[in-house]
């Protein structure tokens, strides 16, 4: 399942540069860059298998933390491939950690710098009419985007006859979170349980 790789310094450097260049394109979250990461890592460089790509995204969704963790997992897998897989022990693990650092630092530095500088400016000028207008104008758009995201995540299950329990689970979750203070982990645990039992 793994691929054997030898990565030179130049390869690591181009990996870093690729994630740097993607950073500022990630409007609406890091996941919007996933198609391009696939093109580069899987199709072009063959540093990552298709399975590793898909399972990196699924694992990042299933683990706690921001979704951008999928980038760390891809860096980890590229490093593991370069080191001969987990079975090769510590040398592979250290290359995998190098992969995590290279990809995460690359994807983070440009967007974080821009955000920090821009928001410090906006905060100092928060009484400006333009700053207020921007925030007020964007508010309904952002709120609708959240509802649309929930809708799209549910709608990706395309077989109504088979998938209606999933839709029902989403709808029930929406109402429960909206109306009650139930702990979110309880709900996620319940979802995982129902899924593991094959009931949804």
């Amino acid at each position, binding site marked *: 399942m793994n691929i054997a790789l030898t990565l030179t310094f130049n390869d690591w450097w181009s990996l870093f540069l690729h994630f740097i260049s993607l*950073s500022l394109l*990630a*409007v*609406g*979250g*890091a996941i919007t860059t996933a198609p391009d990461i696939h093109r580069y890592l899987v199709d072009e460089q063959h540093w990552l298998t298709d*399975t590793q790509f898909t399972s990196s995204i*699924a*694992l990042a*969704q*299933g683990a*706690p*933390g*921001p979704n951008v*963790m999928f980038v760390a*997992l891809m860096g*980890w897998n590229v490093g593991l491939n370069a080191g001969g897989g*987990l079975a090769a022990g510590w040398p592979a693990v250290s290359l*995998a950690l190098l992969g995590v650092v290279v990809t*995460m630092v690359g994807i*983070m530095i*440009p967007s*974080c710098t*821009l*955000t*920090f500088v821009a*928001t*410090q400016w906006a*905060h100092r000028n928060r009484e400006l*009419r333009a700053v207020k*207008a*921007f*925030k*007020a*104008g*964007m508010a*309904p*758009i*952002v*709120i*609708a*985007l*959240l*509802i*649309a995201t*929930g*809708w*799209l*995540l549910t709608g990706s299950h395309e077989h109504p006859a088979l998938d209606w329990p999933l839709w029902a*689970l989403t709808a029930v*979750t*929406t109402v429960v979170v909206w109306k009650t203070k139930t702990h*979110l982990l309880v709900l*996620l645990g319940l*979802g995982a349980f*129902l*899924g*593991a*039992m*094959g009931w949804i």
Partner: protein
Amino acid sequence: MSDNAEAANSAGRKAPRSKTDLFVSFTLLALQGFGGVLAVVQRELVDKKQWLTLDEFVEDWSVAQILPGPNVVNLALMIGGRTFGLPGALAALAGLLLAPTVLVLLFAAAVAGVADTPVAQGMLRGMGAVSAGLIAAVGIKLMGALKNNPMGRWSCLGVAALTFTAIALLRLPLAWVLLSLGPLASIWAWHCLGQGELA
């Protein structure tokens, strides 16, 4: 920028006490966020810690959304930077990323080979359906913040309905929607703010 912390306190609102507080709070927040952190962010920062009011959360979230990079990361940088400058921003960022990175790597190493089994796939399916509901519920809760919007209730609902149609039903690219509706709505809000000053 302790003036902000004082202003916040005088408004009956709380603020992060220290950089350690920021780091620990964002670590705890990140560790509760399965399938994305947004739903937890709203509950922790607005409902529990009260670092932000619902209105401020919507405003900050708009900015975090439009800037490139993960939304939650942007929000952490904003909240940290506002109270303690660059060190605060870095403390919040480190809190958000450090523990989850370690955890996700351990997780990946542990389940290598198991991820493709039907049980694991089923768990991911179930958790995916729940996280869709979490995100939608946050959107519904935040609608309450539109009451105070200078554009008025009906304009807000119109803009929201257009956005939902474009993204969820027509599946247009996010960048198009943000770059077309965003400026239009902002210009309208600018106009309404001007009217408010005159009145």
